[in-house]
C-alpha cells in the first residue's frame, strides 16, 4: 500500500490552530485557535484560488485548546487554557466569508462552566456525541528531582455533552495532556507528561488498565533538571483492542525538541499491558508528534506534529505492520490531523512561527491545509 498526499488548499487564521472539527457535510470547519473559536466555510474542493476568511465566533479567557461538534453539528463545544467548557449554538447557515466579514461575530455560549482550575489541555467527544472528556494538570515541582506534584483536583473529567454535568472524575499524575474515546464510546484513554497511560470504562467508571512507557519523557541534564515532553496524543485502533500513543522520544536537552517522532501501540487489555509496535526507527525523523487520526477504512492512520529534523511531519502508517506508507512535509507545526468522513481528504491544522509585527499588526500564522489522498 502506498499513500500519496496532494495539497489542494491552504487557509490562514489570525493565530495558531490547536484543534479542528469538521461538519459531516464538509461545508464548515471549526477551529480552536489561540485567540478564540473560529468558523470557516470551506471552498469547493476544485476551487484552489478561494481565500475564505475565518470568523471568530467565541472566545475563552486564554488559548482555546479543543473543539467538538455536537447535536448533529448544531452546536460547538470548546475548552480552553482557562479551564472552561463552553457550548454555543451555531447558525443554521454559515455567513458568506468575505474580506468584509473579518470582524468577529461572537456567539454567546449557552453553557459556560468551569471544568478545571488549570488548563484543559485537550477535550475529546464520544462517537455518539453524548459525552465530553477533558484533561488537565499543572506540572508543579513535587520532589528534588522535579518529578510532578500530585494534583489537588481530578485530572480527567467526563461530562454530559448537553448539560455539562460531571459523570466521572479520574486521577492521573499531572500534566495529563491527551484524551480519546474508543470507537464504541465505552472506553476512555488518557496520557500524561510522565508517560503514564490509563484506560477507563466510562459506563462503570472502572479503571481497566494503567501502565507507564518511559519512551516519551525527557529529564534534562544538559540544561535543566526538569521533566518535559510526555504523551501528546492517544487513539484507539478501530477494533478498540489496541491503544496508540504519540509524542517525541527522549531528548537529552529538554530545550532542543529533537526527540524521535514516535508512536507506540499497546495491547491494553493484556495483563500486564504489552507493547506491540512502535515507529520503525529508520522511518522517523525528529520532532514532537501531537496528533493521531485513523482513516475511516481502518487500514492506516496518520501521525503528525513538528518537523525538527528528517523528511516528514505527517506520516501515514499501515495498520497491519506499522510501516510508513505515506508522508508529507508541511512547513508548519501540525496540531490536528483529521480525515474526511469519506476518507478521500486529509485536513491538517496548526501554526507556523509567529511573525514579528508589521505596520503595528501581527500577520496571520495559523493554517489549515487540505490534502487529496491517493491510495495505490
Amino acid at each position: 500500500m502506498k499513500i500519496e498526499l496532494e495539497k489542494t488548499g491552504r487557509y490562514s487564521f489570525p493565530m495558531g490552530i490547536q484543534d479542528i472539527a469538521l461538519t459531516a457535510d464538509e461545508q464548515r470547519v471549526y477551529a480552536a485557535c489561540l485567540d478564540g473559536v473560529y468558523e470557516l466555510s470551506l471552498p469547493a474542493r476544485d476551487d484552489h484560488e478561494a481565500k475564505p476568511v475565518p470568523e471568530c465566533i467565541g472566545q475563552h479567557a486564554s488559548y482555546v485548546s479543543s473543539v467538538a461538534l455536537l447535536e448533529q453539528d448544531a452546536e460547538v463545544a470548546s475548552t480552553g487554557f482557562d479551564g472552561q467548557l463552553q457550548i454555543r449554538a451555531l447558525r443554521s447557515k454559515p455567513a458568506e466569508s468575505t474580506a468584509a466579514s473579518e470582524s468577529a461575530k461572537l456567539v454567546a455560549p449557552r453553557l459556560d462552566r468551569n471544568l478545571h482550575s488549570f488548563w484543559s489541555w485537550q477535550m475529546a467527544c464520544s462517537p455518539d456525541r453524548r459525552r465530553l472528556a477533558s484533561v488537565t494538570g499543572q506540572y508543579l515541582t513535587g520532589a528534588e528531582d522535579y518529578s510532578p506534584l500530585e494534583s489537588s483536583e481530578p485530572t480527567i473529567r467526563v461530562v454530559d455533552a448537553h448539560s455539562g454535568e460531571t459523570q466521572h472524575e479520574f486521577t492521573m499524575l499531572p500534566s495529563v495532556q491527551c484524551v480519546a474515546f474508543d470507537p464504541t464510546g465505552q472506553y476512555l484513554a488518557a496520557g500524561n507528561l510522565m508517560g503514564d497511560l490509563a484506560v477507563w470504562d466510562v459506563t462503570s467508571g472502572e479503571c481497566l488498565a494503567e501502565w507507564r512507557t518511559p519512551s516519551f519523557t525527557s529529564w534534562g541534564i544538559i540544561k535543566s533538571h526538569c521533566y518535559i515532553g510526555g504523551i501528546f496524543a492517544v487513539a484507539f485502533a478501530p477494533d478498540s483492542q489496541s491503544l496508540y500513543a504519540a509524542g517525541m522520544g527522549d531528548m537529552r536537552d529538554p530545550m532542543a525538541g529533537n526527540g524521535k517522532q514516535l508512536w507506540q501501540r499497546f495491547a491494553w487489555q493484556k495483563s500486564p499491558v504489552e507493547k506491540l509496535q512502535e515507529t520503525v526507527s529508520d522511518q522517523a525523523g525528529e520532532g514532537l508528534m501531537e496528533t493521531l487520526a485513523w482513516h475511516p477504512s481502518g487500514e492506516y492512520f496518520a501521525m503528525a506534529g513538528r518537523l525538527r529534523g528528517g523528511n516528514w511531519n505527517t506520516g501515514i502508517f499501515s495498520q497491519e505492520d506499522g510501516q510508513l506508507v505515506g508522508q508529507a512535509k508541511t512547513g508548519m507545526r501540525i496540531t490536528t490531523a483529521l480525515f474526511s468522513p469519506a476518507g478521500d481528504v486529509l485536513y491538517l491544522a496548526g501554526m507556523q512561527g509567529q511573525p514579528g509585527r508589521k505596520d503595528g499588526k501581527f500577520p496571520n500564522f495559523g493554517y489549515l491545509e487540505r490534502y487529496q489522498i491517493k491510495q495505490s
Partner: protein
Amino acid sequence: MKRSESHQNSAPCQSGSQVGCADHQLHRRLFLQGSMAGAASVASFQSLFSVPAFAETVQRRGKRCILLWLCGAPSQFETWDPKPGRPSSGPFPSMASCIPGVHVSSLMPKCATIMDKLTVVRSMSTEPGEHFQAIDMLTRGEGPRPPFTRPILGSVIAQQLGQLDSPVPQFVLLDPCPEGNEFRSFKAANWAGWLGAEYGPVRFGGEYRLDNVIRPEELSELEHADREALRSFLSRKFMNDHRTAAVESYNAVFERVNGLMQAAPLFDLAALPQRDRERYGPGTFGMHSLLARHLVENGSTFVMVANGMPWDCHVFNHETHQMLVPELDRVIFHLISDLEQSGQLDDTLVLMMGEFGRTPFLNDARGRDHYPQAWSMAMAGGGLRPGVVYGATDEDGVAVSDKPVNQRQLFATIFAALGIDPHETYDLPGFPTFHRVEQDTAPIAELLA
C-alpha cells in the same frame, strides 16, 4: 596580572580588605581603637561612627547580596510584564498586585502580594542575543576587552564588602545542576578576573555537602594543626624567595580550604528547620535559595543561586514556565519575607534576573526565543526603593517605551545600593584606565532608597 602590582600602582583603594592602602590602615587603626574603647565605653565606640570613613566601611561591610541567577532567560511575559489580551501574551492571564494598577503574571500570585517590597525594572534593553555573551555581560556589567578580564559582580562585591580572613566563604556559587551548555562554558572562565583567584566563588554542586573538607578521622585536630603550621611556614619561606602570583593563589586556596573546613556545617541543609525546607523546596532551586539565605545570615557576602539553564524555553515555553515560575514565585516570596521578618532585608540586596528576555513571538516549537531588546528583572532589599516598577514596554512588549535601562545603569545602581563606588578606577599596569562601571554611567536615582 598580580593584584599586588595593582596596589603599588593604584588607585583602587577599595574596602579595608586590601593591604597597603592608606585608607585601609586608617580603618584598621580606628577599628582596633574602637574595639578596645568599646569594651570600656559604648559612647566612645559610637563616637567612632562620627569618623565618616570608618562609618562608611562598617556600613558597607554589613551589606550582602543574593543573586537568583535565572539562567537561560525567563520570559518577561510570564513573569513581570504580562500583556493580557495581546497576541504576544501567551496563555497565562495577568493578576493585580498589591500596587494599584500594577499587574504581574497569574503564575506569580505570591509575588503579587509583596510587590510593594520589590523593585522591578521592565525596561531592560541590552545587546548580546546569545547566552554566553549575554551571561558574560550581565554578570560582569560590560562586554569583554581582552586581555583585561573584568571580575564578575560576585567577585567585586566579595572583594569590596567581604572579609578575606573570615572562615565563611565570601562568594558562594550554589550550582545544583552543573551542566547547562553555554553556562557551563561560562563557569569554566575566569570569574574573578584581575582581582585574583581568592575572589572567585566557592562552588557547591548538586549534593548537599562540601567535598574534601572533612578532616579524616585518623588525623587528630592537633596533628592537623601541626601539619598546617608546617605547610604555612614552608609556604611563607618559599614565597619570600619566589614571590609569584601562582604561589599567592596556591596559598589562598589553602587558606580557603581551612576556612571551608570550619564552615562546612553551614552547608548542611539537613540541619536547617524542616519547615523552612518544606517552604522553599522541594526542588533544588528552592533548597539552594534557602541555603543562600542561611549563608548570608552567617557571614557570606555574595551568594549566587543557579540551576542549570532551565529558562531557555525555545520549545515548550508555556509548559516549562507553568512549572518554573510558581517555584520562583514561592522562593522569592519566602526569601524576601524571611529577610524582612528577621530585619535583614535592609542590608541584603536580592537580585532576580537572567541574561535577557524572550521573544514576544511564539516560534513553531511552542517556544519563545532570545530577546535582549526589551525584558524585565527584579530586585529587593538593601539600598533600593521598594514598590517601584521602573520603565515600560509597548503594548506588545516588542520595544522599550519608557526609561530604557542597559547593563551599565543596572550595575551602577546595584553598586550604589550596596555603597560601592560605581566609578572606581582600575589602573592596572600595561592597561588603559578601566572603571568599575564604564562611561561615567550614573545609578538610577529613582531606584535607590
